């Protein structure tokens, strides 16, 4: 089973990489379409919010299929690994990084399905690939669990909810980057700013209650294991920082003078805080030092 997990991980990574290559070609075909449009060749614009040009949609289609395949393979890898270890993907950075990448792909495809903005994949997939590359460099051995982690159900749920939250925050980050990369009026070939704003918001709407749940489950676990639900452990604190930034974003988005660019900047800061929360245990120490790298 451990070997199967390895193979599925490698295959999933490869598939995701090929998907990214597909998205690059897809985007380049968009640039070509923009040039054609500038030259006066007729270009079709679809329903509100969707820009459909004479892109090579079939490339985009294959890229999507490959990405789905990567998602499925990484999921399989996690399942094999769980069978081999007997617990969820929470005992070291290897397992958790694959789970995070899996979450990003899942969140991304959920949004691609609804909003058909493949250009976002150009930004979301590299984040997933970076995590997979990172997973490939850290020890993957199956070790017995340290006592604090021997609470299977609570931790599995804790991590599963974290994956949903982090995955959707990555999508929001990608949307915010694209939002900031263009003028208010939009730029041909990129998703429209209103659509990006909505995707970013939707992603936080999905992720925020999950992040709330992650923090609460973490507090519950801390209460069971150490007898206190909150101890300002660096990882706890970083997740609270993240929670407040996204909370601020949700308010900013309905306030005059804050919606739009400032809100998008909060999404970028929020994602930086997410990464700090995620990688924090590598340099903070503290009770969450389960990285297996010490």
């Amino acid at each position: 089973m451990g070997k199967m997990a390895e193979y599925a991980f490698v295959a999933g990574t490869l598939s995701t990489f090929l998907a990214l290559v597909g998205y690059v070609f897809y985007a380049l075909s968009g640039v070509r379409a923009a040039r054609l449009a500038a030259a006066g060749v007729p270009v079709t614009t679809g329903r509100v919010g969707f820009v459909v040009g004479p892109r090579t949609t079939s490339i985009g289609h294959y890229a999507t299929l490959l990405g789905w395949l990567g998602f499925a393979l990484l999921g399989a890898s996690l399942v094999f690994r769980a069978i081999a270890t007997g617990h969820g993907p929470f005992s070291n950075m290897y397992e958790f990084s694959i789970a995070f990448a899996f979450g990003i792909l899942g969140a991304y495809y959920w949004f691609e399905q609804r909003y058909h903005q493949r250009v976002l994949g150009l930004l979301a997939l590299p984040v997933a690939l970076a995590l997979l590359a990172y997973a490939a460099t850290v020890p993957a051995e199956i070790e017995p669990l340290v006592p604090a982690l021997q609470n299977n159900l609570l931790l599995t749920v804790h991590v599963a909810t974290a994956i949903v939250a982090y995955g959707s925050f990555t999508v929001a980050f990608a949307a915010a980057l694209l939002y900031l990369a263009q003028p208010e009026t939009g730029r041909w070939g990129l998703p429209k700013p209103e659509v990006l704003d909505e995707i970013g918001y939707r992603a936080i709407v999905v992720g925020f209650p999950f992040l709330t749940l992650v923090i609460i489950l973490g507090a519950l676990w801390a209460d069971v294991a150490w007898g206190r639900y909150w101890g300002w452990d660096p990882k706890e604190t970083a997740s609270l920082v993240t929670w407040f930034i996204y909370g601020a974003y949700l308010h900013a988005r309905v306030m005059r003078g804050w919606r739009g660019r400032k809100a998008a900047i909060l999404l970028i800061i929020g994602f930086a805080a997410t990464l700090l929360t995620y990688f924090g245990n590598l340099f903070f120490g503290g009770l969450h030092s389960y990285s297996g790298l010490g």
Partner: protein
Amino acid sequence: MTQNTRTQKLAAGAVPAPGEADGVAGVDSALEQLWHVLTSMKLALVLMLAFAALTLVGTLVIQAPAGVMEDPQAKSQWLAGIRPRYGGWTDILDRLQVFTIFTSFWLRAIGALLAASLVACTVHRIPGTWRTVARPRIDVGPAFFEHAPQHEAMTFHRPSDDVLETTRRVFRRHGYRTLSLDDGTIHLYFDRNRWAPWSGLVAHAAIVVILAGAMVGSLWGFRDGNFMLAEGSTSAIPKVAGATITLNSFKDTYSPTNGQPLDYVSNVTVAQNGAPIATQDVRVNEPLRYQGVSFYQSFFGPAAVVTVKDAKGAIVYAGGVPLAWEATGGNKVGTFALPTQGLTAWVVATTGTDDPAIKPGQVAIELYRADTGDPVVQKSIDQGVATTIEGLTYTFEREAKFTGLSVANDPGTPIVWLGCILLVVGFAVRMYVPHRRIWGRLAARPDGGSSLAIAAVGRRDSGFDAEFTTLVTDIRQAVTAAARS
């Protein structure tokens, strides 16, 4: 009418204070002002970001261990330890309470402001939410049906009561409640999930509940993170009269491959007035709870079982001494009191083999005056050999283990969990169960037909756009179908 405009009004309302316009100066208008500030979204946003920034500092700058800053000597020692890293900033950061940021004035002040703002906002939003839910405005002007983000005008060759009936049926099928008002023109109001707006208020109030629970815990709870018990020893349970806890045995196991700890277990017995109540294994993730007091496995180490007798052979002290501290040089040390002699005894054990004063199999006994702390005498004794020091005989019986438990009683915890449940449920409902509202205007036409306009102010939300479109299509089809039959 929408959440958006309501919020804008909130923010805009911060500018004029109504009290002043009436010429009512003084306290009322000051309170009014305060209320406006506390209910402003801008303040909420700034406070949230400030809270995030402060706690972030707490993860990036080293924090003093609990208790160190209250003890001047420990404090200067600790500051000296970090001075190489922070240089001349050390004292400035210390003065600004950066090393104790989580208990600092700054964090408490912002937390208090946030709590005040949350209470104010929640209370402030109750009347508006009540109106939206219970007494929505049904008749909106005709302009609304041209300018709303989602709007559609339809004309039918059917009389208006027919169209009204059909439209109502379609909305009901989609889960909407329908309200109407007839003043020549029929005004229509449809909504779905009308209780959902309360969930946002519940979630905000939940944050206050959590803070209240934390407050209760810090006022009436207690925690001892250093409750040590050697094998065979018994100790009183704090806060529970007549209750004791005994460590029967302690076991730790390690992974043979990488030496990581696999398990550590304290087997303990709880007794009430001398009668055993329960015996249980305590491990990480498996606390022992008794009468509201919980024991958590926290740390462990070696102990020395020592017996002390006086000249007549009566036992002065007998029990395991946890060797929980480390002396310079790595020796493990522990302490116990001999109150009748006015002495404090320290037991020192070597970890290495090259200590000239203490040989393997020995421990050193060091005696100090309990009142002054002056050293009295120091002597190494062999295991199992009764040795007389200053009129008492000391025997180092054997080595043992001690367990370090965290003992806590936090009456605020249930309140915190209640707040957490309200928080998650509140936000989840607020975000996944939107309150949908659609207005309609139905008028008879001179030709016997009728015209129906419907409009909505959805937030930017393609899901609602799609739902609106579906409703329009369904109404058209239903009216046409009714006409044919």
